């Protein structure tokens, strides 16, 4: 009878240590507003509903080079950079699904969502000061704005 230590567990746990630090290029944190979606629509990929060489499987670490902030659900803030264009539009007009998504990323309770929408709407020019603002800047200003609001401060950790 053999005894085996499951050392693979330790290996797997440590792999997180080598992931890029938050803000790394793989996360898209350096992306500017209106970064756009490069490249033409791939005819064959759409015909067969496939992807071009990227078999992603919803893994938050490893596949996109982002580390996970355990305190935020859904893979955390890295998602914000991906939806930043729509987020900026929603903040400007005061409502929208990207705004809701960001509220959920920050675990904002349904009763505080209206406040979140109103406060971000008022602070559009603070959160999105220029067209060259990066995702990292946006997240940082957003959290500053949230911290200065009595109802929203608790959601920024």
């Amino acid at each position: 009878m053999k005894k085996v230590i499951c050392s693979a567990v330790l290996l797997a746990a440590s792999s997180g240590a080598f992931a890029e630090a938050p803000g790394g290029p793989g996360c898209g944190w350096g992306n500017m507003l209106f970064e756009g979606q490069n490249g033409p629509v791939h005819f064959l990929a759409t015909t067969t509903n496939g992807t071009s060489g990227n078999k992603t499987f919803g893994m938050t670490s490893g596949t996109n080079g982002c580390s996970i902030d355990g305190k935020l659900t859904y893979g955390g803030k890295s998602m914000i950079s991906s939806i930043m264009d729509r987020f900026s539009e929603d903040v400007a007009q005061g409502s929208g699904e990207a705004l809701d998504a960001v509220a959920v990323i920050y675990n904002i309770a349904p009763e505080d969502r209206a406040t979140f929408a109103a406060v971000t709407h008022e602070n559009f020019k603070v959160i999105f000061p220029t067209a060259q603002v990066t995702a990292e800047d946006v997240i940082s200003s957003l959290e500053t704005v949230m911290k200065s609001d009595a109802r929203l401060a608790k959601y920024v950790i």
Partner: protein
Amino acid sequence: MRKTIIKPQLLPFLFLRLNMRYLKNYFIPALTLFLTTTPCSYATSLETINQLQANAVANQLSQHPEWINLLHYEQTNWFNNDYVSQVDDARFFNAEDGKTNPTAELSETINAFFKTDITGDNHAQCKFVARLEWLKEKLPDLQTSLPEVTCKEYLEWRANIPDESVTMVFPAYHLNSPSSMFGHTLIRLDPPADRQGSEWLSIAVNFGANVTDGDNSLFYAFKGLSGGYPGYFIVTPYFKKIKEYNYREKRDIWEYPLNLTAEETRRMVTHLWELRDIQFDYYFFDENCSYRLLELLEVARPGIDLTNEFKLTAIPVDTVRSIEDAGLITAATYRPSQVTVLEYLLAKIPNKNHHLIEAIANDPELTRSSEFTDLPTIEQRQLVEISYKYLRYQQTGTVRDEAIATRSHELLGILNSYPAQQTAPTPTSNNQPEKGHYSKRLTIGYGEENKSNYAELGYKLSFHNLEDNEAGFLQGAQINLGNIQLRAYQDESIRLQQFDVVDIFSLTPRTRLFDPLSWRIYTGAERQYTAGKDRLVAHVTGGAGVAYQPINNNIIYSMLLARIERNSAFDNNITPALGASLGMLHHFGNSTARLELSGEEFDNHEYRHRGLYTQNFVISRNHSIKINATREEQRSIHFSEFGINYQYYFF
């Protein structure tokens, strides 16, 4: 007697700069994890494994529908239980002959679950989680005797995959995108309802071919038809799919929440993990995106049969119907594309302001002009919003343009100066694609051609003609595959009248903001009266032009066409021709009519000019009567044709 082995792979970890941040973020959690992990248990005696395998055989578990579904077996011979799995990946099986032998696979799977020389995520217990759960249910003794394995990667993945409910997603067709011609389906995994408003963060499960960038050509599309591409399940955040379909491909999305319970949803997610990186052959027509999703649903809810009727073709909208027939769909919601939203906003803006849209998009400073500031606030806001969206539309699928980015930002700032909007008005639709007529068509008709009578029988594999019942479809979009018509004449001869391989007719009206091309391509064999005789000719015909919508439900179009024809009466084997068409399509509600003048001239100076009138009268969803009249003129002859057809659409 516990022995710790430091693997060489761990050395880089030890050499990390042990600053406080790393210590706090990574080292401590890793250490804690290490200390709390129990070592794997001792190997169970061989007798236990043999006993479980014998029980499985005695209970015929390997023939159980759930086992068959989990391994994607398909019965190839109804008389002697021959199976073959549709998975083309050795890693998916534990037995050597697992692809074709459900019984051996089950025995070997039990065996693999007891292995103690493999640990962690590579263990069969971690790789085949759904099989394990099911076997535990069927063989209660399994639970107690299994060695303990920690599946860290799996658990981490599960923590990020919502598993409360399932939504079927159908990105509909878009006219000017041939690759979207049949639509597509994917599955969305949703979190509990208290995460309301977070559909963007739901997870999309998509089955597709893995293609490489060099493969972007029609030649490779044929490879896709014949199963030359490996297919995989792909799991991504849903907002990526919104970007892909609503934005880049200009397709509206229909979402159908399903009534799968949390337990059924979890069973599906568990099985999904087993399919990670696992290769299927991708076939465009049958074993495609939609077919594989039906299989997932069959795993989720044992006992439903969704795939059986799709052995030949699985057209995505038909699979939505099959899910509806199985009683899984609870509602339908509509997510309009970027273009649909723009057209909707444009319709709300008074005509007198239309010229301001592009002007403001090009120069946001114009919002300071009196022409703008004199407008009512509500009209001002509308103009800023549509100008912004129009700018963004222009940037879809291109690289970032600094000037456009600056103008976009400026417009958002102006939009922000108006009071906040609680809910943005969005276009709605009740034109649900699955409510449209069925995809296959049978026609039976009678007519007169050049003064001789005929009876006609037709079959079409799929999908939709310009004049067909418009409910559930887009006006101006015709996509047909595999249409065949036979005619029987009074002299008792039976002739192939027409065989269309592909027939696409795409009419997209130009508007203030958009100037798309309309186009047509069709190829196959058809009868042409040439040199005193009705001849079967092979041809490829295609062209492009423009379409406009002068009033609602009406499209006028004009195209330049080119044709190559193989006609036994012509000197050359293949003769080219140039042509043109001018037509009008009108939807009356329960009837659609088309009038077209067209003609072509061959390089041997033969020509054909014709006038066509056709009208389809809808009786009910899947029944209609179609009439047509043609007048054709050639250099030496002219003749007419009249016909009436009963059309029946079926699954």
